[in-house]
Every structure is written in structure tokens, then in C-alpha cells.
């Protein structure tokens, strides 16, 4: 049994299945190796496909000659842009009801006359064997002519810069104005300025992008793919000029997503090849391909100017943000909005101006990554809080305490926080869990402690008009089927639905089967992104299960001759609450309902709150349904001779509203913290002049078992979330505060701040050198 610190501060009622670390429904397949991921499927007569990718970050394509490849034995098809005139990936944001032009993907499927980043797709080859498909890329001749390029957002904004995205490389801008920051800044006793930079990082899910496509007997293009979004079937249909009902996307359990499988990956390549060859076509990215050619996290440069009083109260903030969108526009406008809207963090700041801009360059394109801009914002605002404390010579925790937002306070957009805002509670517990101060064991070792608080939305942007649907049905033998198009990316998304249903209908988990992630056969449930599935599909399932329960309970109350609200369900039995001897087996009740034609199933749609778009002048308005709050504390040791940083202890405390499955919640928190550790200390997709220098796990380092500190996970449950049973989302929030907590701990240890992630030994030494020169 997992041992977790889970104090029940809000006195939530004990439930039968909810809140228990029950073995997940996906557990047995995973520990026996039986679970099938997209790349594990094979089909008779299957072909293997490869993508030929650009060798240069910016070039004109003068000529593509595929004649040698076409004639090569074993090669069945070679496709270039000429075979699909004008086809572009114009990924709509799935579920968005707004008809105005969205700012989603707009990239060619295959480059025609110009490539804009290294690794851009140029041709697809489908062959009898993978080895043959791999050779084909040597057999296709591409003549390039170098084209002017630009590799930093600052340069790309200059007049006369090479244009990557028409008309001026500006991909998105958000200007948020609340109060009057200029005027309020004049009332500040102290003004603190700081600039913080983050890097490109890779999702580095262990499962590379993979899928298999075929045309079925009804002419439906069917794609089994590792994806967070089966609703891409619509974008696929648009790109391939097929009716939407002739594209069927079947997901599989996803071997890690983190936002990297939110955009389309292999779908169009294998879809095109399958349409062309009329044979099943499989594609798995190599690790190198995944590192080179798929989206990365946006690097940001964030500048804070904060006006504070002597006593530590923030009176004004001006924040500028510049993000690198890379060569094509995927989700940059929204990533930027998340960043801008959380620019000052979970603090009460009544006068704020935020100017945020995302710019195109000839770097690998950037898009969704767990934390989605809000994580980059947190890296900056939490370091800024510590810098404010340093300027004022105050305890950083005290500065936070003075400024923490309360329920009713508003974000820079003017959206009010609702429910419990347990910032101080979380920070205190995380900090206390670090334990006593430790002494360094050698003169060149320095120990430091750092804290970061955060806020992170869960659920999608409310003007997207988000919905999810689920179907819950009882079989005659009392077992249950749930159908809900939720992609399970490892967070236990499907298990959550089972656990909710078990609670409502009193049926043990092992009697429940969940079908998910299918665009045609399961009710559409929206994306597994934005920390939304527990909230959205959890609620849809909860509603559906409640509807089934209502019908059954009504019939049972007649049979057992009691009031409706006296009926309860547990252990496959229906009984009278205060007299359990009055009962009947669930199967008997089902048989009665079936005989009388009463429904034993329900399809339910859950609707998030809908709002209008933001005020175009000042970006005021609501953006998200709700927020999760929490804190991360760390203790680090810095070797001042080598610059090496080791995290000794990590303590996270999050208010998850209600932990539906504490083991799964702890998994999210521990995993998110580890990713945050990588973000802070080692991960860096180094793209120099458009060339990725880190194309394998030998260069792109992610945390291993020996990098992970002693870890303490504290789960608080305020019960005030918008999910079923008061739950809040935790998928993204888990990562957000870790990197700034480490940055703050390192600054605490060495007495100087490294303002650029990752905190490499070189940068740490450089910061130490600077202080030494200052004092020598």
C-alpha cells in the first residue's frame, strides 16, 4: 500500500472507491507487458514508411528527383508535395465552436519549394521493409539553395529580417492591462527588475511518435496512432480532402504525451501513404527524428519590473515576454496567453501590464508542453519574488505571504480566483517537509533551500466552449461498460472514469471495462490536454452514472418499498441505507428494469462554463474554469569548484481538491517534479544556427533514477475543485513550480542568481566568479 501524506483538512466524507489508491484498470497489462501501444500493432500486407527531412534550416528547394527511389525494388510509393497539391495541416483546435479564424497550425504537410527548419518533411516513402524505406532517403535527390535565415526572436522582429511567417514574423501578441501600472509604479518604495530566460526542451516521452493507417472495407481511412487528440480526425479529413466521416482515428494507450502528442504527428504521412497504396502503412519515428523534427517547449525571455513598498507589498508590475515560436505556427498563440495571463503568479497585484509576443524563427517549431507557457511564466515570477525579497532584505517566504492572492482576488485578466486558495498552507507544508537545515560537509560545498508557489489552470479556455461526453451502461450480469473517447496518456485517465462509476453504482472496479480514445466508436470527449480529462470526462461520466443510478434507484424504491433517497448501492447490491437487510442483488434489479424496458445506460454531455472572448483592448475577461494551487520546496547542494548542482530533497504540496486515486495523483506529482528537475538542471535542446546539436539521449539528458532526490509528496484536499467530488486537475501543475524552486535554492546556496535555464555547471561557476570579482 502506498504511503502518502494526505491530511484531510477539509473534513471530506469518506467514500467507498474515491480517495483509495486502488490498483488501476490498466495496471495488469502494464506489468505483464501485454499492453499494446500504437507501434506494437501489425497488419497483414503492411508497409513501412519513412519521411525524408530537410538537411537545412532555411533553404529553397530547387529540385526533388524521386526517380531512383521509385524504381528501387521493394519501394511501393514515394510521395512529395506534387502528389498533394496545396495540402496543409490546418489543425483546428478540436472542439472550438468559434468560426473566426483560429490561430492553430498552418504548415505544409510536405515542403514544396522552401524549407523553414531542419527536419521539415519533404517526401514520404513506403516500402515492403523498413530497411528499404530507410534507404530511400538516400535515393531521393534534393537540390537546395540556402535562403536567408533568422534564429532568435529578437532578430526576427527587426525590420528587414528574413521573413519566416508572413507578414512580419509576429505570430501572436497579447497585451493585458489591469489598473494603471505606470502610475502605481511611482508609489513604489523600491523597483526590482529582472530578466529570466528559458530554453527549448523536448518531451522525451519514452514512446516515440507512432501509428499505422489503412483504408477499411467501407473506404474509411483508419488510423491507429499514439495521440492525445483523436479529434484530429477533422483536421486530417480537411488536409486530405475527405469527408469527416471517412476518417476514423483510433488511439492506443499513449507511452507519454506531455503535450508533444497534442499536435498531429505521423497521421498525415501514413494516411497519405495508405490512401495511395491501399495497403496498411506503419511509421515509428526514430528517437533522433523525434528530437529533431517534432515540437519543443517555447523558450521565453521574460522581463519583470515590480514596484514594492518597503514592507514587501507589490503595488505594480510590468512584464514583457518574448517567445520563440519556431518555423511554423502551432499552438504558440495559446501558449503565450497562458504565460501572459499568469505573468505575476498567484499574487494580489492590482496594477499590471503584460506585453507578450511570440515570433517565428528558423528553429524547430514549438508548441504544447506540460505547463503550456504558465510553466515558463512561473520560472520568472518565482525567481522575481526571491529577488524582491533580496532587495528588501526580507525572508522570501514572508514576501510571498504578504502578497498571496485570496479567493476573490483577480488575475491580470481580471478573472477572480474561486474556491480554496491554499497557497500559504501548501508553501508551509512543503517547506516544513524539507526538515532541518543541513550543514555542508566540505568547504567548497554550499547548501541552499528554495521555494516556489504557483497557480495553473485546469480545463480549456472557456471561449473554446469545451464539452465532453461519456456513456455508462450496465450489462445483464451486473458488469459495466464505459464508453468515452478519452485518450489515456498514462495519468490513469480511463481508470478515473472507472473509479467514479464504481463509486456511483456500487460496483467493484474489476467489474468495469472502459473503452476510450476512438473518434468513431466512443462518444467524443475532447483532448487529453490542458489538465482537463478528470474535470471534463470525469464529470460527463459522473453525470451518466448518476442518470443510470436514478432510474435503478426509482425502480428499487418501489421494490423495496422505501423512499428514493434511502436507496444505496454497494458491492453489487442495492439496499436500504439504514436497514441493509432490505436488499436485492443488482442483477435482479437490472433484470426487472430490462423486462420493463427501463434504460440501463446513459449518454451524458458535460459542458464547461462558456464565456465570451477577451476584451481586445486590454485582454480583460475570464479565460479558464478554475486553477490549481500548490508549492514546491527543494534543498540543493552546490559544488562551488565544479559548479555542479545536486537536489538533495524535494517536497511538493498541492491542493488537488480531492485525490480520486491518490496513487495516480502521487505519480503525477512525482513525475512532474522530476521533469521540472530536468528543466532546471540538465535538459536543453541546443539549436545553434537552426541545427540541433542534441539529437540523442546521449546529448539530450533527462533525469535518471540517480538524479532524483529524496522526495516527499503531500496531497491536500480542499474539496473545492470543479471536478467530480471536488477534484482539481494535477497533470500540468505538478511540473510548474519545480524549476524556479531549484533556481531559488541555487541562488540561496551561492548568493548569486543564474537567470538562464538550465543551471549548468558552467553557468553556476560563472555566477560564482562574478561575485568573487565583485568582492575582490
Amino acid at each position: 500500500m502506498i504511503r502518502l501524506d494526505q491530511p484531510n483538512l477539509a473534513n471530506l466524507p469518506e467514500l467507498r472507491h474515491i480517495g483509495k489508491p486502488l490498483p488501476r484498470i490498466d495496471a495488469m497489462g502494464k506489468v505483464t507487458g501485454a499492453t499494446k501501444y500504437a507501434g506494437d500493432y501489425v497488419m497483414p500486407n503492411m508497409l513501412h514508411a519513412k519521411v525524408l527531412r530537410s538537411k537545412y534550416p532555411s533553404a529553397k528547394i530547387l529540385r526533388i528527383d524521386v526517380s531512383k527511389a521509385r524504381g528501387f525494388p521493394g519501394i511501393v510509393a514515394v510521395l512529395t508535395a506534387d502528389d498533394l497539391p496545396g495540402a496543409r495541416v490546418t489543425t483546428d483546435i478540436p472542439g472550438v465552436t468559434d468560426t473566426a479564424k483560429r490561430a492553430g497550425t498552418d504548415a505544409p504537410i510536405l515542403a514544396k519549394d522552401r524549407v523553414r527548419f531542419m527536419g521539415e518533411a519533404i517526401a514520404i516513402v513506403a516500402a515492403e521493409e523498413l530497411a528499404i524505406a530507410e534507404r530511400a532517403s538516400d535515393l531521393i535527390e534534393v537540390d537546395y539553395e540556402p535562403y536567408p535565415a533568422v534564429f532568435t526572436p529578437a532578430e526576427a522582429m527587426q525590420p528587414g529580417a528574413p521573413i519566416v511567417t508572413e507578414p512580419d514574423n509576429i505570430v501572436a501578441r497579447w497585451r493585458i492591462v489591469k489598473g494603471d501600472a505606470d502610475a502605481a509604479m511611482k508609489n513604489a518604495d523600491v523597483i526590482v527588475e529582472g530578466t529570466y530566460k528559458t530554453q527549448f526542451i523536448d518531451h522525451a516521452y519514452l514512446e516515440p511518435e507512432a501509428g499505422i493507417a489503412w483504408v477499411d472495407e467501407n473506404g474509411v481511412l483508419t488510423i491507429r496512432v499514439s495521440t492525445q487528440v483523436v479529434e484530429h480526425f477533422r483536421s486530417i479529413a480537411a488536409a486530405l480532402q475527405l469527408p469527416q466521416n471517412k476518417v476514423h482515428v483510433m488511439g492506443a494507450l499513449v507511452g507519454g504525451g506531455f503535450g508533444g502528442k497534442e499536435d498531429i504527428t505521423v497521421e498525415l504521412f501514413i494516411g497519405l501513404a495508405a490512401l495511395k497504396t491501399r495497403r496498411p502503412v506503419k511509421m515509428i519515428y526514430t528517437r533522433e527524428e523525434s528530437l529533431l523534427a517534432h515540437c519543443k517547449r517555447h523558450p521565453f525571455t521574460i522581463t519583470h519590473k515590480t514596484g514594492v513598498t518597503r514592507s514587501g507589498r507589490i503595488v505594480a508590475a510590468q512584464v514583457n515576454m518574448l517567445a520563440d515560436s519556431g518555423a511554423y505556427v502551432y499552438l504558440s498563440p495559446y501558449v503565450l496567453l497562458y504565460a501572459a495571463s499568469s505573468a505575476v503568479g498567484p499574487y494580489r497585484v492590482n496594477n499590471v501590464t503584460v506585453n507578450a509576443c511570440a515570433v517565428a524563427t528558423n528553429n524547430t517549431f514549438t508548441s504544447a508542453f506540460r505547463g503550456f507557457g504558465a510553466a515558463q511564466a512561473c520560472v520568472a515570477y518565482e525567481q522575481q519574488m526571491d529577488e524582491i525579497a533580496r532587495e528588501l532584505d526580507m525572508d522570501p517566504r514572508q514576501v510571498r505571504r504578504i502578497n498571496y492572492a485570496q479567493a476573490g482576488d483577480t488575475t491580470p485578466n481580471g478573472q477572480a480566483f474561486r474556491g480554496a486558495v491554499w497557497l500559504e498552507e501548501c508553501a508551509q507544508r512543503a517547506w516544513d517537509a524539507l526538515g532541518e537545515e543541513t550543514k555542508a560537509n566540505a568547504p567548497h560545498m554550499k547548501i541552499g533551500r528554495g521555494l516556489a508557489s504557483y497557480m495553473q489552470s485546469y480545463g480549456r479556455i472557456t471561449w473554446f466552449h469545451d464539452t465532453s461526453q461519456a456513456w455508462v451502461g450496465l450489462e445483464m450480469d451486473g458488469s459495466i461498460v464505459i464508453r468515452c473517447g478519452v485518450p489515456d496518456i498514462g495519468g490513469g485517465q480511463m481508470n478515473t472514469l472507472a473509479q467514479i462509476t464504481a463509486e456511483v453504482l456500487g460496483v467493484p472496479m474489476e467489474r468495469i471495462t472502459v473503452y476510450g480514445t476512438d473518434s468513431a466508436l466512443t462518444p467524443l470527449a475532447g483532448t487529453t490536454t490542458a489538465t482537463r480529462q478528470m474535470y471534463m470526462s470525469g464529470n460527463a461520466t459522473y453525470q451518466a452514472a448518476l442518470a443510470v443510478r436514478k432510474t435503478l434507484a426509482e425502480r428499487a424504491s418501489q421494490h423495496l418499498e422505501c423512499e428514493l433517497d434511502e436507496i444505496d448501492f454497494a458491492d453489487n447490491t442495492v439496499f436500504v441505507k439504514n436497514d441493509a437487510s432490505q436488499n436485492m442483488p443488482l442483477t435482479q434489479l437490472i433484470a426487472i428494469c430490462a423486462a420493463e424496458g427501463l434504460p440501463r445506460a446513459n449518454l451524458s454531455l458535460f459542458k464547461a462554463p462558456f464565456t465570451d472572448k477577451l476584451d481586445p483592448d486590454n485582454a480583460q475577461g475570464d479565460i479558464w474554469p478554475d486553477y490549481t494551487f500548490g508549492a514546491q520546496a527543494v534543498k540543493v547542494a552546490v559544488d562551488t569548484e565544479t559548479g555542479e548542482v545536486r537536489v538533495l530533497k524535494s517536497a511538493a504540496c498541492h491542493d488537488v481538491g480531492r485525490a480520486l486515486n491518490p496513487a495516480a495523483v502521487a505519480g503525477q506529482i512525482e513525475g512532474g517534479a522530476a521533469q521540472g528537475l530536468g528543466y532546471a538542471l540538465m535538459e536543453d535542446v541546443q539549436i545553434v544556427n537552426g541545427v540541433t546539436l542534441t539529437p540523442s539521449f546521449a546529448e539530450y539528458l533527462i533525469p535518471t533514477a540517480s538524479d532524483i532526490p529524496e522526495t516527499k509528496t503531500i496531497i491536500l484536499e480542499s474539496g473545492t475543485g470543479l471536478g467530480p467530488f471536488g477534484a482539481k486537475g494535477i497533470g500540468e501543475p505538478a511540473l510548474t513550480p519545480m524549476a524556479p524552486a531549484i533556481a531559488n535554492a541555487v541562488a540561496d546556496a551561492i548568493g548569486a542568481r543564474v537567470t538562464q535555464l538550465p543551471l549548468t555547471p558552467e553557468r553556476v561557476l560563472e555566477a560564482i566568479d562574478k561575485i568573487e570579482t565583485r568582492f575582490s
Partner: protein
Amino acid sequence: MQRKTIHLTLNGEPREWSVYPNELLLNVLREQEFLTGAKYGCGIGECGACTVHLNGAPMLSCLTLAIACDGADILTIEGLARDGKLDAVQEAFLEHSAFQCGFCTPDMIMMTRALLNENPQPSEAQVRDYLRGNLCRCTGYASILRAALDAAAVLNVRRNIHAAEERADA
């Protein structure tokens, strides 16, 4: 290139494979035997996703030529449970929910099993060190470490009970 016929034991069963000299063990397992528990994560020995046991020792099947397995005894995650009963390491991973996406779970279990074969009472530091080459992007390793240490403890208790029973019998 000529195929060559080799003989080996796979998950306790005799096998005859006809393989090309450049074929990788990982691909033969996945594509000919349809044993997909061993995964492709990098193909060049940097992630551990393809870990199987070769003659009792953990081996990266993406770096192992199938032809070199003539006469070998290979165990994959699919062969770890015996007679429908999970191995103690699998039970511990189940108990501790030591996975999220599960993609690394087969390799983590095979690696942990190999560790406990070599060293029945590892310290936490030894577990971390042994699993260092096996990447997990989801769990932060915390639950995996709990499961591995718990599996060691359970196996030790079982061994002690077994030894006591043998003493009693003697």
C-alpha cells in the same frame, strides 16, 4: 546476405529462428515472435526500453544481434509470470502503481528482477545505480524505487520462510 538458423530457449520454450546476420534481437522478438513487451525507445543503447534477460543477465536487445543468441536462454517480460502467477517484482509494481504510461514498465521490471537475482538485499542507492540506464519520463522513479525495495523485502521474507521450512523438514 544469407540467413542462418539458430536454436535457443525463449521464455522457457525451445525456438528455431532463421535470421540475417545483421538482424537485431529486439526486432526479431517484436516482429517474428510478436513479443512487444520489449520496446524501441532509442535503438542505440541509451534508454533501456528494450531490456530482456540473456542467460540470466539484463541485455539491451536493440544492441544485440539475434544471430549471437544461438544456444542462449532468453527471458522477456511475457515469460516472467509463471503458471499464471505474477513474479514478486510484478506484484510490487502493481501494488505501488509504479508506472504511469507503462512504456518503461517491462524494462524496469526486467531490470529490477535482474538486480534482485544478483543482489537480493540492495540498498536504495544500489537500486538507483542499477536502474540508472533505464529511463522513465513519467513517474520520477519514486514509485519504481518503492516497488523495487518492497519486492526485495517480500522476496527476503519468502526466502526466510522457505529456509525455516527446510530446517523444520530436516
